């Protein structure tokens, strides 16, 4: 992905961002024969070569794999996750001092500025939206209707899954459509027990399955030598086996192989240039992150894939006579309706009777209990709308509980080498309703080192989410009790109940039928400026209750092919 070709002033297409969405836009546009400039604000990260910690063991880090004081001081907001600042991955997360943002209400904006974006460090859980999700807003009179239904996007999900590789088990559920899946990973013995007991104990259709995750479990996939998962559980460091999907291992190399891609890292896009005579965008304004030189690049079509918050920020900065409040912001919805998933609520327990068992391998995946609320009939509840799923699983502790009972000496030393109890965790992931009051906006009084306005967040979870959390906790307790586990304990961690912490920012430029109430049309185009497509989390009209990235890929692939068709039509 070296930038060997000379930079031109004009391209067929520009893609802003190289993460989950940007990589897919680049691949599809390039495969359609469009000369495509891909702009990334961060540094270059090459597959394998730039994964410095991929093969490091705990003793290879000076303090073990623990965040240092210095990193915590530089990255206090990233550190709110509690894990991304560890030396294994901290180099893939932004320096909060260099990239500040503001909070009217707390918002954890966790992100990485480099080629590949968060596709390198993502959670990889991959589920499809269903018509239950697409129809929910309309049925309930919440926000606006999705202008898309499952049949529109289904073939694109097929295409994406066949290309990236997703493993898991199809269940034929209306709330969780079947997918093109590779063979599932295994549940462990404690999870199997829980699965059996849940099936026996509940009559509302709830069930337990293995997570569907973007890991290759058989064969290989296109890209840079992508092969099967080795169960090392070091994914977020970058995978030398290319076993999980990332832009770096998959879409970007395929885009590059077409000969149509020019990738320019260190390129901060801050504005889309709009031409009032043609009613189209003509290009983008860029600042070089290192040299601070400024550039303009032109293109016939522009894909904003910078992530929900950053794409909205670029549009808000793109002011013109026609769009004084930001490009495409006729509705006043740009930057509003921020959603994330709420989690850190559920239950944990200990499982007895499995002391003679242990796992071989470290599975970077967990169990999944698909949504079982508000699907009609006995599943309906009046306390809240929508639903939630559970992730989690059973793991055996690395250290015997006897260690806590011993003070010192040879007996203690023996015990520290033995495994401890089996712990089970059901971690709820709940849908967040779109709410106009949840927003981000720009602060022109606080500029960053490139002279650009900083983002201010003003968002939080609402009553529906809080009501849902009670049920998420209660039902997790009930399922663990039904399994006969010990010390079952529900939890709802107030300090982790923060917007953004799910790292699923969505909704800042939502899709809709009506330009008066939405920013994008059904093909992810800005209603009043159709050669700009926004295909990252910004387009989400509602959040559903599962990890959203797979949907970004499918919508991006569909939008990119739509753009290519439009260009071909216009040229003939």
């Amino acid at each position, binding site marked *: 992905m070296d930038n060997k070709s000379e930079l031109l002033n004009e391209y067929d297409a520009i893609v802003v961002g190289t993460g989950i969405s940007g990589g897919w836009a680049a691949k599809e546009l390039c495969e359609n024969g469009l000369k495509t400039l891909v702009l990334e604000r961060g540094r270059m990260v090459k597959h394998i070569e730039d994964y410095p910690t991929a*093969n490091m*063991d*705990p*003793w290879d880090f*000076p*303090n*073990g794999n*623990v*965040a*240092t*004081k*210095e990193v*915590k001081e530089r990255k206090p907001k990233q550190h709110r996750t509690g894990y991304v600042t560890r030396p294994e991955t901290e180099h893939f997360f932004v320096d909060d001092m260099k990239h500040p943002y503001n909070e009217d209400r707390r918002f954890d904006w966790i992100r990485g500025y480099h080629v590949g974006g968060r596709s390198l460090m993502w959670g990889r859980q991959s589920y499809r939206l269903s018509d239950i999700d697409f129809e929910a807003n309309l049925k309930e009179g919440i926000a606006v209707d999705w202008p898309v239904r499952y049949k529109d996007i289904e073939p694109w999900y097929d295409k994406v899954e066949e290309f990236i590789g997703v493993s898991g088990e199809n269940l034929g559920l209306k709330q969780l459509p079947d997918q093109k899946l590779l063979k599932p*990973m*295994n549940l*462990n*013995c*404690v999870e*199997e027990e829980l699965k059996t007991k849940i099936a026996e104990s509940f009559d509302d259709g709830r069930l337990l399955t293995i997570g569907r995750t973007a890991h290759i479990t058989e064969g290989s996939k296109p890209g840079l030598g992508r092969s099967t998962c*080795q*169960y*090392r559980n070091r994914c977020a460091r970058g995978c030398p086996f290319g076993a999980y999907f990332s832009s770096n291992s998959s879409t970007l190399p395929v885009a590059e192989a077409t000969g149509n891609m020019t990738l320019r890292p260190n390129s901060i896009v801050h504005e889309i240039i709009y031409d009032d005579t043609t009613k189209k965008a003509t290009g983008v304004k860029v600042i070089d992150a290192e040299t601070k030189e400024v550039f303009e690049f032109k293109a016939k079509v522009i894909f904003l894939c910078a992530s929900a918050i950053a794409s909205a920020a670029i549009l808000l900065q793109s002011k013109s006579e026609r769009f004084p409040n930001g490009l495409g912001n006729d509705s006043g919805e740009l930057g509003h309706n921020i959603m994330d998933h709420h989690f850190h609520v559920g239950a944990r327990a200990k499982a007895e009777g499995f*002391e*003679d*068992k*242990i*796992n*071989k*391998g*470290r*599975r970077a995946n967990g169990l999944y209990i698909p949504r079982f609320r508000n699907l009609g009939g006995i599943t309906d509840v009046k306390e809240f709308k929508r639903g939630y799923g559970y992730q989690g699983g059973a793991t055996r502790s*690395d*250290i015997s509980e006897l*260690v*806590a*009972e*011993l*003070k*010192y*000496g*040879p007996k*203690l*030393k023996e015990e*520290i*080498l*033995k*495994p401890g109890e089996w712990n089970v965790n059901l971690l709820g992931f709940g849908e967040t309703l779109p709410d106009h009051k949840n927003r981000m906006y720009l602060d022109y009084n606080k500029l960053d080192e490139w002279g650009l306005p900083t983002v201010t967040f003003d968002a939080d979870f609402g009553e529906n989410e809080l009501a849902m959390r009670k049920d998420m906790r209660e039902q997790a307790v009930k399922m663990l009790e039904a399994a006969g586990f010990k010390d079952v304990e529900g939890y709802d961690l107030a300090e982790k109940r923060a917007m953004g912490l799910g790292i699923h920012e969505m909704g800042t430029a939502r899709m809709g039928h009506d330009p008066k109430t939405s920013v994008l049309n059904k093909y992810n185009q800005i209603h009043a400026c159709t050669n700009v497509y926004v295909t990252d989390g910004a387009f989400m009209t509602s959040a559903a209750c599962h990890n959203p990235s797979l949907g970004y890929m499918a919508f991006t692939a569909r939008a990119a092919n739509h753009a290519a068709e439009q260009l071909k039509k216009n040229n003939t």
Partner: protein
Amino acid sequence: MKRRDALKNLGLATGFFVATPTIVSLLQSCTSDVKTWVPEFLSQDQGIALTKIADIILPKTEGLPSATELNVPQFIDKYMNEVLDAEDQAKYKNAFSNLITMLKPNSEESIEKVTIEDYKVLLDKHMLVKDEIDEEREANLESLELTKSEFLNGLKWMTINAYLTTEQIGENVLVYDPVPSQYYCGDLQELTGGKSYSL
């Protein structure tokens, strides 16, 4: 020479490694000698006290090195310097200084005169484990300072974690499985002989 290279040169980097006295002294000679070690975070006396306590917590046993043979005190000292935030650093500094006062009420005395038995008496009395009540905490629930028991248990866990985070224990004592290539639930004895994995 780095410990890793030393182990490789000795042909010990793979397979189960039983540390014989000769090998241990070899390893010690090319890492920091306790007597010449200058702590980064702790005072000299505190470093000596930590060394003694670490070796009481994890003494040398048949086939397994002691904490100091694996440079655990050096790891802890560096960890306190580089990982703990300023608030926790202050708590530990204070607790260490109280520890030294308890060990040798007369500040003129040498820390070297404190015997292993003296340390053990202190640990027996103040390091409270499961089901023992920390009266110092009960008497002052709001205090931000570490109680003696919290401090000593902190040292215990740091010692254990540092010990388990060494290459020697990780690769040669615990079960080291860097590329498992599969995942399943199996028999503990068959898979690990009853031990934990290091990764």
